[in-house]
């Protein structure tokens, strides 16, 4: 229902922007090759927009060398994936994707980038032979996955079901152990359908343990031995060290002479 509403509003928007009989401007018209405006499926247009953005930003994450830029592209890719979730009718999952992934996990990652962004580690180069090898392996994996995606015939022909209820309430009830949604067409109605109370509890305990463990791992420790980073910072070079030693001894002499 949401998608139909979205599509109708988008087509209204399109018809106000470009008259139905008139030509579409620029590149879009050249690529669309004379598809009449009324025949354009706006759900597909939005899907193409979000899908192109998600894939392009995912590839940009791979190609970028700078960590900060990688984090930025990852934010864009995950946000457009949330748009894909909205278009598929999973509005609750899309909202959680925006709130937890983009709002939480990415902020965590950006904090990690900021805490470790010393000059030599912002851009660590990979050797070009590794790049070529990884590209070949990636192309082979992509070929296998795409072939599997297009092999099943019913997956290519959507039915665009007219009515679908919002999914937030059934998801909440399922997490409480009660299923209120309609069974899927492939599932016999008499089958006992379990809720998700036990996985919900397991995930809750998991999150609690992870929170404690992460706080334990990342806590500030008082050390007996100096940290390697301090050693690396102090051992900048024999000349500087000798100069610092000379300066400290000179200041000791001056202060001793003052007394």
């Amino acid at each position, binding site marked *: 229902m949401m998608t139909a509403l979205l599509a109708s509003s988008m087509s209204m928007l399109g018809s106000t922007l470009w008259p139905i009989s008139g030509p579409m401007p620029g590149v879009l018209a*050249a*690529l*669309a*090759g004379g*598809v009449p405006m009324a025949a354009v*499926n706006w759900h*597909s*247009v939005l*899907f193409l927009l979000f899908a192109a953005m998600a*894939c392009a930003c995912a*590839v940009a*994450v791979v190609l970028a060398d700078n960590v900060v830029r990688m984090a930025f592209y*990852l934010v864009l*890719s995950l946000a457009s*994936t949330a748009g*894909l*979730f909205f278009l*598929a*009718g*999973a509005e*609750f*999952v899309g909202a*959680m*994707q925006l709130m*937890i*992934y983009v709002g939480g*996990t990415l902020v965590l990652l950006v*904090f990690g980038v900021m*805490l*470790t962004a010393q000059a030599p*580690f912002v851009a660590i180069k*990979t050797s070009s032979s590794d790049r070529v090898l990884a*590209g070949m392996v*990636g192309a082979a*994996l*992509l070929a296998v*996955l*795409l072939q599997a*995606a*297009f092999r099943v*015939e*019913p997956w*290519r022909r*959507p*039915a665009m079901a007219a009515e679908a209820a919002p999914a937030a309430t059934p*998801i909440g009830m*399922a997490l409480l152990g009660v299923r209120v949604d309609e069974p*899927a067409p*492939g*599932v016999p109605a008499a089958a006992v359908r379990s809720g998700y109370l036990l996985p919900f509890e397991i995930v809750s305990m*998991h*999150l609690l343990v*992870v*929170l404690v463990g992460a*706080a334990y*791992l*990342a806590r500030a420790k008082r050390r007996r031995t100096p*940290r*390697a980073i301090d050693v*690396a910072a102090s051992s900048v070079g024999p000349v500087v060290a000798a100069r610092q030693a000379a300066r400290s001894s000179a200041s000791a002499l001056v202060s001793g002479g003052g007394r």
Partner: protein
Amino acid sequence: MNHLAAVLPSVATPLFAGLLSSPVGVAHYLVVGAILFTAGVVCMALKRNALGVLMGIELVLNGANVNFVAFSSPYLRGEGAASLGLDGQVIALFVILLAAAEAAVALAITLNFYNNHATVDIDRAEDLKG
């Protein structure tokens, strides 16, 4: 170059026009999920920065999530195709939660490694090498 510019529209235009006017199906979502998954795997294999490897893991989990949501969607189901129904959305939620937990622990480990070794280059993590 001119030859390519002449050939490309004649190939791309019917494809793009078909994509614009026909509704999307599960296979379209699977293509997006496959590209995200592959980008994540290549990112995990290629990056030498530990945080880059973490970002690759996030991409892989996200690609799997796209597939789960596509299979559970009521809009994309073809005639006679089975659907995950609500299960796919709930599994996608669990994946998001576990990804958040994994990112927190992995980031804590990375920061600990950075405190001890003064680097985030994973090629330098060879203390356990036999």
